[in-house]
């Protein structure tokens, strides 16, 4: 629900619900530990009823034009679950930014007498950034015209964890940390604006995975969607596989735009009629006629209705992975798919959920000897017997399922010999491959390690054919990046439809594109400021040393919390989807 100028707001979450209605400003807030109710407030007098001894709530009339916010005190926490203790303590001027699992209590007091204290609230979808300015003592008696108190408890922000176009590019699926899948559909180009490309609008949203609890290990299984892979479309419905750490689900997304009416077995209001009483086909009665006119018996007819998109889980593939699933990949036979965790790869049949074949197992007999884990795996796009998997040591193994049932012995082994001059303590960590993708042609594959992207020819195992540096300027900062854990970030990469360009993400919401033919590269930024409709993206540059030119960013001012880990490229056109934390940016190339 949104806050508008007429000031009505409804917020319902799992822990509380809050209703604030109209300019006469009465609101009710009910949480698990307290309640508030406010009656009508006049110009000066404020009537407050608070049902919790720790919380003092003051509210008043919210009339007037502009709705301005500023921050007030919080006395005590509303809810025990409020995790971030910082946010519940007395807050003064600062920006309150919510992390993925944080909940915060924000009290905003609107005062007209205060000079223009404003706060912006942006909600997408559940993320919120509230800028708070100024403090107001909660129990001041404020003789201003309108004061409004607003309390809200924000649900954790939803960080996008995977992005994937379907085979035709018509649909774009995103998965987030809260286990939700949001599918966007491209609108057909309208005749009125022939030059405009179709926009992507929300098509369907559903909760794919819920948090689970593993009782044996006393561990919570996160509901974060690790990967989404579409199945090729075979009928009107769309199918996709989504996975969290342990369970893979096959979802069917179908449209429904017709509804049957005129049932014989059901009454008008939906109640089932007693079957024994039905002796004839029901006859319809004309409405509003005094004399019932009985028409011939009818069978149910399909009536059009508003388009409804339904998602239903068709298969659940569970209990096959001890470790965290990091990849799924649909095979080119469209019947099987593989799923890979840290130590094992399983092959599934889409129809069979109670068992899978284990095709790779690198778990050592003695776990102490473990030095390498599987980081990504993918099926070959054309040869259904071939797949590759990458490791944390920077190696890629290509396996042929025809050779043996258990593919522990690889057919090809891809590794680039280490450059001894650039060896450091972090050599191994930065060589760990975070993503591997076959080209659409099936002849090449691309791997992403921490600092570079490498293109390999499947016929040449000893070195890649192309290497692109993504952010070489970070090489001198590896120790700091190790310290703040950024060195463990897993970036993804993607090909364009014709395999002539590749794209991957970086920090500071930058993403990089490399043209394989011209050897040119470009750095672009995904940010709200730069995102006006149809605005061209300006190339960005990172200044590595020496004098910083205008428009360049120095390495030290990069924001390492803003990282683009997930990107996707439309399979046929030049449309890209870039996930920046909890925002999804879609860029298209300019039509001349």
């Amino acid at each position: 629900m949104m806050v508008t100028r007429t000031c009505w707001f409804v917020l319902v979450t799992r822990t509380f619900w809050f209703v604030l209605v109209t300019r006469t400003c009465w609101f009710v807030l009910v949480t698990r530990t307290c309640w508030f109710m406010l009656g009508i407030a006049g110009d000066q007098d404020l009537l407050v009823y608070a049902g919790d001894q720790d919380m003092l709530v003051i509210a008043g009339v919210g009339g007037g034009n502009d709705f301005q916010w500023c921050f007030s005190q919080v006395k005590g926490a509303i809810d025990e679950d409020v995790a971030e203790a910082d946010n519940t303590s007395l807050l003064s001027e600062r920006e309150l930014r919510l992390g993925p699992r944080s909940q915060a209590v924000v009290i905003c007091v609107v005062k007209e007498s205060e000079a223009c204290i404003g706060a912006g609230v942006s909600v997408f979808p559940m993320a919120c950034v509230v800028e708070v300015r100024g403090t107001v003592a909660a129990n001041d008696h404020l003789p201003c015209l309108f004061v409004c108190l607003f309390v809200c408890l924000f649900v954790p922000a939803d960080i996008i964890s995977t992005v994937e176009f379907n085979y035709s590019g018509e649909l774009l699926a995103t998965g987030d940390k809260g286990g939700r899948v949001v599918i966007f559909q491209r609108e057909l180009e309208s005749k009125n604006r022939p030059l405009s490309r179709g926009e992507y609008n929300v098509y369907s949203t559903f909760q794919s995975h819920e948090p689970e609890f593993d009782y044996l290990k006393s561990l919570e299984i996160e509901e974060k969607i690790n990967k989404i892979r579409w199945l090729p479309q075979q009928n009107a419905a769309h199918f996709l596989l989504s996975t969290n750490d342990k369970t893979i689900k096959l979802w069917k997304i179908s449209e429904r735009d017709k509804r049957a009416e005129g049932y014989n077995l059901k009454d008008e209001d939906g109640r089932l009629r007693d079957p024994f009483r039905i002796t004839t086909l029901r006859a319809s009665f004309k409405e509003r006629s005094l004399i019932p006119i009985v028409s011939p018996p009818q069978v149910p007819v399909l009536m059009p209705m508003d388009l409804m998109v339904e998602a239903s889980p068709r298969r659940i593939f569970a209990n096959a992975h001890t470790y965290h699933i990091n990849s799924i990949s649909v095979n080119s036979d469209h019947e099987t798919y593989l799923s890979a965790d840290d130590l094992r790869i399983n092959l599934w049949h889409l129809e069979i959920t109670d068992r899978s074949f284990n095709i790779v197992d690198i778990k050592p007999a003695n776990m102490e000897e473990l030095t390498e884990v599987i980081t990504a795996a993918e099926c070959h796009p054309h040869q259904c017997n071939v797949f590759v998997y990458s490791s944390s040591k920077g190696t890629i193994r290509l396996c042929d399922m025809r050779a043996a049932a258990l593919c522990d012995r690889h057919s090809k082994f891809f590794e680039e010999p280490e450059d001894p001059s650039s060896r450091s303590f972090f050599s191994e960590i930065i060589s760990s491959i975070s993503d591997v993708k076959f080209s659409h042609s099936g002849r090449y594959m691309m791997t992403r390690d921490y600092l570079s992207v490498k293109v390999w020819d499947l016929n040449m195992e000893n070195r890649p054919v192309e290497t692109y540096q993504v952010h070489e300027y970070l090489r001198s900062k590896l120790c700091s990046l190790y310290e703040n854990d950024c060195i463990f970030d897993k970036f993804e990469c993607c090909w364009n439809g014709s395999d002539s360009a590749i794209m991957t993400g970086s920090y500071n919401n930058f993403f990089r594109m490399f043209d394989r033919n011209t050897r040119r590269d470009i750095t672009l930024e995904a940010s709200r400021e730069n995102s006006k409709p149809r605005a061209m993206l300006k190339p960005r540059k990172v200044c590595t040393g020496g004098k910083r030119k205008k428009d360049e960013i120095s390495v030290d001012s990069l924001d390492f919390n803003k990282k683009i880990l997930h990107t996707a490229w439309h399979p046929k056109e030049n449309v890209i989807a870039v996930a920046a934390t909890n925002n999804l940016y879609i860029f298209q190339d300019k039509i001349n």
Partner: protein
Amino acid sequence: MGARGLKRKLHECEEGGGSVWENQLQSVLDISWDKFQRDQALVEPSLRRSVLINNTLRQVQSEVRTSLSGLCSPRKQHSPLRAQHELRSQRECSPADLDASVFSVGMEDTGDDFMAWSTDEDFSLSSAISAILKNLDSALDAGPSVPQRFPLASVENIPGDGKCRQSVTFSHMVESCRASEVGGSSMSGFLQDATIDDLLLDIDTSGFDGDVSGFGSRTFSFPADELVRYLPALSSSPSAPSSPGSREMHELEHIMDILVRS
């Protein structure tokens, strides 16, 4: 902060270049150890992350070891055989226990991991170890409620189990390493060495010159004032160790922690 690791050459070890490398070595150790500890506290650390941190720690170990093995051959007088033996067994426990600790959390086959040792012919580590000790002390100062677990060292120090020992061997290692590193000066000479002095502050050197056998089952506990007390007594006989009572408590906490996790 830290730059790339430089390939350390033999002749550089006593010069400034060596200290740069040492600094980086120390910082990598600090950070890795910190992460290692934090991951232990997590319910289920990511396996990839654990493996990478573990490999980094191992790599640092081996770097130190190789750099020292080139230096330490003429300096055996401060590496008595028994110290070597302890160091060897000490070193053995380290990767094993690291692995055990890393992988025993929430993983399969946790049963006997921490019992396994592997043999290793290398010996003592350098002042990097003393850097670890310094970290441990700072961790101690922070008032930990979790029993201390130290890098490259035995997680359990259960009396009577005949497992790895800690404090004595650390000090042995430090002494022998520093002897070899600085080159032949006496023990007291080390104390004057400014770069190493502060590293030494936190070492429990009790029992350094004394009976090794007496410390078969000593836990690693660091009351800071006691350590400082021991500092000038490096070449003298060891003072009384820290109170057995608290050590027992630490050991028990160790054991309980391991049992709970595995």
